[in-house]
């Protein structure tokens, strides 16, 4: 299903969408004092220090959400999801690590795991709600709330993403705790409904009102462990415990997310004791800056994220309209060297071999592993396609040089370094590369949808452990009048035989069969090299000595997915 695109910085991405990196971050901090000889921060994947009841924390937040109407187009902020939505909006499925894979599991909102079955060609999903589940005003969370949410998304205007909801034909509510949702056709990603993207909203408070107006500046209701106490625009968001939450109550009395958009300054603020925790953008110098904090900082690095950085080739533009050139390109790029340079300090050294981010590892294969630097193979492919090297050492065919521009986000150090490395590697291989960067708004609002680029460098973010390759690789997702320009196959990819396989991935309800179809799709993609995966972008959580509890990063719900369990150390 084609997805809408919002050119946000670190936007909340409906299924998988280009995510723009933060601008003006890591503006070359050189710590001036007391940096040498200090012990490096501990780095691991999780901690669990005992905590006491009460107290408050201040957490540095790099980005402020544009609004808190999570369903609306303005609610596309991953930081908004992490800070407010996850803490206040109940959802049918949580995403938890099970057997090494991130998996949707029924949340405590549910009395039992939702079930699904096919009735003819229609899919029917039955939700049984936990009778203990209540809103912060004491009113029970009922099937009417599911119905309200489903219809708001399906029928509402200016909705961020209708994927799945647009298939809903009816929502039956036989009793207060049972909802039966019928979809007009099978939808493999059905667990995403009422899941991490939107959750469930209170119909008794929103029905008949302008939902966007009620929610966009923050709201007083909650069906999660926390309530929004205040949102001072440009300054902070403060959460306090929801006393009526039916699950485990928060240990802390208050948590404040204070906005600090500059990573370097935020790290300094952490060093100065202003912040107790940070979730910084992994820029080139971030690790070095964190190291200056010494043992006062506990750093967790998560490489198994939903963020995938890739080189996106415009298959409709010269020279990438030739499959031979795309393959030669793939054999000319030393992805391992790039990844090591970019993320080596975070422990990520291996390039991605799939267009599935690590969040979707169960559906991924490693078909791109065959593309390693091989100058002879690249030259062979180019020559077979009629290219010869000109006097400047560049490939040329019919008087046209194999020259192209690479486009990414202006001001992003990491991306700019990648482009420079690419320029060097590809130059040696006979491709003339020029760099032409722009703003996220221009790239994702204008250039990419219009196909006005040759090689793009940006991230895809998966926001739920469900495969959605079709959004990027299906020919039906090429922006066109047929899909109201809403597709995100900006690369104009048309791989023979791929569309029906992707369709089966999208509609298959049997997990085993779905994994098999996913692998088939990956193989077809790798054989054609319509683009080239680069690396999984790691996430970093930095916490201070005061912070205890089970600290770890959830790639879907964020670093504060279990904020209720955080506390001040004993």
């Amino acid at each position, binding site marked *: 299903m084609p997805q809408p695109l919002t050119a946000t910085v670190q936007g909340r991405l409906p299924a998988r969408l280009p995510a723009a990196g933060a601008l003006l971050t890591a503006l070359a901090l050189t710590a001036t004092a007391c940096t040498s000889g200090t012990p490096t921060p501990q780095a691991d994947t999780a901690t669990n220090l005992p905590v006491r009841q009460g107290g408050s924390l201040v957490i540095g937040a790099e980005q402020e959400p544009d609004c808190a109407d999570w369903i609306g187009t303005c609610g596309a902020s991953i930081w908004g999801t992490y800070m407010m939505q996850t803490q206040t909006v109940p959802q049918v499925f949580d995403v938890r690590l099970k057997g090494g894979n991130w998996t949707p599991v029924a949340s405590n909102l549910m009395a039992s795991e939702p079930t699904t079955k096919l009735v003819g060609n229609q899919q029917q999903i039955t939700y049984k709600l936990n009778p203990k589940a209540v809103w912060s005003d004491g009113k029970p969370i009922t099937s009417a709330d599911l119905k309200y949410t489903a219809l708001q998304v399906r029928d509402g205007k200016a909705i961020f993403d209708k994927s799945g909801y647009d298939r809903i034909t009816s929502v039956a509510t036989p009793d207060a705790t049972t909802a039966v949702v019928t979809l007009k056709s099978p939808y493999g990603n059905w667990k995403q409904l009422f899941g991490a993207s939107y959750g469930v909203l209170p119909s008794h408070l929103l029905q008949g009102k302008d939902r966007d107006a009620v929610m966009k500046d923050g709201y007083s209701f909650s069906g999660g462990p926390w309530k929004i106490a205040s949102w001072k625009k440009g300054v902070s968001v403060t959460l306090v415990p929801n006393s009526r939450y039916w699950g485990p109550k928060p240990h802390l009395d208050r948590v404040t997310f204070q906005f600090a958009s500059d990573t370097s300054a935020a790290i300094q603020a952490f060093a100065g*004791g202003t912040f107790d925790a940070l979730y910084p953008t992994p820029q080139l110098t971030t690790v070095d800056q964190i190291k200056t904090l010494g043992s006062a900082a506990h750093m967790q690095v998560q490489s198994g994220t939903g963020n995938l950085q890739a080189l996106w080739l415009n298959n409709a533009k010269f020279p990438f309209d030739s499959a031979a050139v795309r393959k030669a390109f793939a054999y000319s790029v030393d992805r391992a060297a790039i990844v090591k340079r970019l993320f080596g300090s975070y422990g990520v050294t291996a390039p991605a071999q799939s267009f599935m981010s690590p969040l979707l590892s169960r559906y991924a294969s490693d078909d791109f592993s065959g593309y390693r630097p091989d100058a002879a193979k690249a030259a062979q492919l180019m020559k077979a396609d009629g290219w010869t090297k000109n006097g400047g050492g560049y490939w040329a065919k019919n008087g046209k040089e194999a020259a192209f521009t690479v486009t990414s986000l202006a001001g992003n150090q990491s991306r700019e370094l990648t482009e420079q490395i690419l320029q060097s590697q590809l130059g040696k291989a006979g491709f003339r590369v020029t760099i032409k960067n722009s703003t996220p*708004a221009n790239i994702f609002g204008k250039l990419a949808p219009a196909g006005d680029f040759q090689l793009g460098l940006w991230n895809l973010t998966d926001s739920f452990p469900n495969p959605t390759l079709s959004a990027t690789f299906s020919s039906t997702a090429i922006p066109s009048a047929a899909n109201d*320009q809403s597709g*995100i196959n900006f690369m104009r990819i048309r791989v023979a035989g791929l569309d029906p396989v992707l369709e089966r991935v999208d509609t298959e309800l049997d997990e085993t069969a779905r994994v098999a179809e996913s692998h088939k799709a990956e193989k077809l993609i790798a054989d054609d090299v319509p683009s080239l995966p680069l690396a999984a972008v790691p996430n970093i959580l930095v916490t201070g000595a005061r912070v205890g509890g089970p600290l770890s990063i959830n790639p879907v719900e964020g670093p504060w997915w279990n904020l209720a369990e955080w506390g001040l150390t004993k």
Partner: protein
Amino acid sequence: MTRYALRRLLASVPVVCVASFVLFWAVRATFDPLAKLRQSVDPTALHRETVRLGLDRSLPEQYLLWVKGFVQGDWGISTRTGGAVLPMVGDALGTTLQLILWGVALAVVLALAIGLYSAARQYTVGDHVLTGLSYLGVAMPAFWFGLVLIQLLAVWPKQQFGLPDPPLYFVGLHSVGHSGLDLDYLRHLVLPVITLTVGLVASWSRFGRATLLEALSSNYVRTARAKGVPRHRILLRHALRNALAPFVTVVAMDAAALVGGLVVTEQIFSIPGMGKLFLASLETGDVFVLLPWMLVVAVAVILFNLLADLSYALLDPRVALR
């Protein structure tokens, strides 16, 4: 004076009109107000918004619609936040003006003091040292200087002396739970104000020195000296007063530029002012914020210009306000 000010304000109206049209045209030519909706799965969204926003009309018609709304206080809705633009720009402007007020006041005092010292003691060691420091001040990028200040004046003292809090804060203008004009506010204000001040002091002090030296070499100063007027009196009452007029013009012009020019300082210190608003709007192509933002900056330039002219007349009676 009042009549002159009013006349100047009225004369500014055509300038603002022309500026606003040029800005309107430039922003619309650069950004697509419906970029977000072009990816929408709602097939009616694009047409609906095109009609609602009047984008199906000619550019002059669109401009007139926008101006009418702007004058009536309807500055539109941000495509980024869905909120009204007027309070967004108003809040940001208020925040930035706080920085400008404190920064310019401090910079004027320091620049004049340094300028006076350097002019009075031309080519002395002190003058050379201050000249060198001025060049350093002009050359230092705000993003680097701000971070160095944070480290030196906030983080390092806290770590070195085991303080519970840093002596100076550097995130926003208030700590959590604080508001208004209190000590917490001042502790937040010091570092961003120094950051924006250092460049101003550096350039203004050089300018002050030059104009003072020119005044000191004039005939009326020579005459005053010949009459035996004390040195400090010559400096403060004769030279300084004459040098102030061009100095004030430079200050006013630079202060106007600061209204939209504190992007880096506000970014580093997480201050939700005009610079941060501009950056956020630019990144997301939010034309409905960018347009009024630019117009506000343009109006600020005109107003500060007027202020400079009025100050000029106050400082130099030979200037007639006609």
